[in-house]
């Protein structure tokens, strides 16, 4: 009897054994249920809890007196490092006290292992396949590249999870993106994301699942751009199906055991959409909204810019810096433009330094900052002034996101940002890479 027969047989007797998507399977396993379906509210065991510097701000922090399992907790300072203001320095102090009080071993203070939390998840294999990871930052879905349930939650959620290793989720429907083909030169995963966001808009209350033969042509860093940006789709969870590239990546960085999860062949999806990577072109999101706002870079061609920024949890990887450097190599950033580059972690920074990427960027006139969120959230190291225009390879272009609310923020790939920095106007990167 084949699987289809089993399903037919079972459904005749009113037994629902329709398959589950990756997200549903992990949620079922972690809530101790055989099966979960869209619409269910489930209480889930949480494997990993990440707190970051903003959590310790005095206008948010509630003193924690008990934690359930200190070894499940990771503390990261990333949004404002080194401290940008007295308030952030105070938050760092409170965070260090928390770490000392509960003996937290995985602590990323300012220094050697500093970086954006979602990049550290990749650098250190913190997101184990099949596990549940929470952080109170909306781009936590980034970790879904490692086939885990990674979710940005609120401050109260993260405090609760630290105290109890438990949380609740509403199970949503899943949209599956089947990737096919291979990206053309100068076209990146960011452009693939902008294509999806432009065509399909938000995916509120739904999960996004990526898979298909085309994922083989994407590096872990490129895949991570897709899962990170899924926050902009308002997706609940973004997961990749597992493959050897990903499994080897995790095993090389974290010796802990895990169980990868594959979608069932008869999983029920709200929609199944093909994305042909081979026919994509460079896109930009116009200011103020990420979704339903993508246009070919040519439409914005010639728009004057004051600042160009490459960084963030979506585009501060070694691949991103390398791509930017390949365009900037031997060229000069326009004297009218500030090009700021912020590696996503000090590990990425060191790798870029060793391979000569940083030298190429600096020789071209870029300012390379230490690893932090920095200008992405308008916190420090590249805040925009009134009426300025910026092109950014980050996550968000909302009004006021990077500084003054009158500033205009266009968003594109690191290649588009680097090319634009050279010309001083928004530029198709294929002009420099062919």
């Amino acid at each position, binding site marked *: 009897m084949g699987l289809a027969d089993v399903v037919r047989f079972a459904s005749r007797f009113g037994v629902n054994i329709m398959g589950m998507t990756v997200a549903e399977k992990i949620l079922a396993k972690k809530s101790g249920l055989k099966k979960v379906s869209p619409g269910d*509210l489930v209480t889930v065991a949480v494997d990993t809890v990440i707190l970051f510097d*903003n959590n310790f*701000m*005095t*206008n*948010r*922090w*509630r*003193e*924690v*007196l*008990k934690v359930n399992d200190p070894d499940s907790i990771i503390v990261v300072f990333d949004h404002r490092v080194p401290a940008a*203001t007295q*308030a952030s320095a105070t938050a760092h102090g409170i965070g260090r006290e928390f770490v000392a009080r509960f003996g937290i071993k995985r602590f990323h203070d300012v220094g050697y292992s500093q970086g954006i939390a979602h990049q550290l998840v990749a650098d250190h294999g913190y997101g184990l396949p099949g596990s549940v990871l929470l952080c*109170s*930052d*909306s781009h936590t879905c980034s970790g879904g590249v490692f086939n885990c349930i990674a979710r*940005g*939650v*609120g*401050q*109260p*959620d993260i*405090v*609760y999870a630290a*105290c*109890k290793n438990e949380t*609740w989720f*509403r199970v*949503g429907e899943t949209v599956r993106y089947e990737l096919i083909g291979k990206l053309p030169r100068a076209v990146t995963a960011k452009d693939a994301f902008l294509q999806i966001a432009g065509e399909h808009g*938000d995916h*509120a*209350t739904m999960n996004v699942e990526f898979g298909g033969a085309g994922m083989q042509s994407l590096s872990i860093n490129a895949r991570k751009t897709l899962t990170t940006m899924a926050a902009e789709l*308002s997706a*609940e969870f973004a997961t990749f199906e597992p493959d050897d590239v990903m499994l080897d990546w995790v095993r090389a960085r974290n010796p802990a055991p895990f169980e990868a999860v594959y979608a069932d062949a008869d999983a029920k999806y709200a929609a199944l959409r093909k994305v042909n990577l081979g026919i994509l072109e460079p896109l930009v999101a116009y200011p103020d*909204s990420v*979704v339903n706002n993508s246009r070919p870079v040519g439409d914005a061609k010639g728009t004057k810019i004051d600042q160009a920024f490459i960084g963030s949890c979506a585009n501060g990887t070694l691949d991103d810096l390398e791509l930017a450097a390949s365009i900037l190599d031997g060229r000069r950033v326009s004297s009218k433009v500030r090009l700021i580059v912020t590696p996503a972690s000090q590990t990425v920074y060191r790798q870029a330094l060793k391979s000569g990427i940083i030298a190429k960027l600096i020789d071209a006139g870029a300012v390379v900052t230490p690893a932090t969120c920095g200008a992405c*959230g*308008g*916190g420090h190291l590249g805040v925009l002034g009134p009426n300025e225009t910026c092109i950014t390879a980050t996550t*968000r272009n*909302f*009004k*006021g*996101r990077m*500084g003054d*609310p009158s500033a205009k923020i266009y968003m594109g790939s690191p290649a588009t940002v680097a090319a634009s920095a050279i010309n001083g106007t928004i530029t198709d990167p294929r002009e420099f890479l062919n």
Partner: protein
Amino acid sequence: MKFQSRVWKCGDNINTDLILPIQAFYLTPAEQAPWVFRNNRPGWSEQVKPGDILIGGRNFGMGSSRPAARSLKNLGLSCLVAHSLNGLFFRNCVNFAFPAIECANVFDAFEEGDIAEVDFDAATVRNVTSDKSLAAIALPPKLLDLLKAGGIYALLEKEGAIGPKTAASG
């Protein structure tokens, strides 16, 4: 749990940067509240009276995890009704004990200034001014209980897992 008051309206895809702008990042929760919508609707927050109800469109509260729901609560709004609520924002609503509920097409059912009656137990939204009723999507009982109990911090405080509220933490 039932609220009746005049309504304010805002459109689709209201993001948390608009509710809690970066300029207010370092302020206390009480100081942050008047910053709601200051970048897109200057002067509005000064007109809000305690108990007023906010009506939103699609995907209300999209964006970051910042405690934007807390700002709406501290501004004095009694509750929020939206066509749909962003998942992360909704978590913050429940956890900070700011009542929020989804109700299809609620945006078109109200003019700004109309009186609304929102019943969380019955999951209904009535436009008292035009005498029209809409069905809302009931909150799962567990979450409604959490809202009524004052949110997650009240729960943890009772269990001795976290310390008391301070002036700074709000």
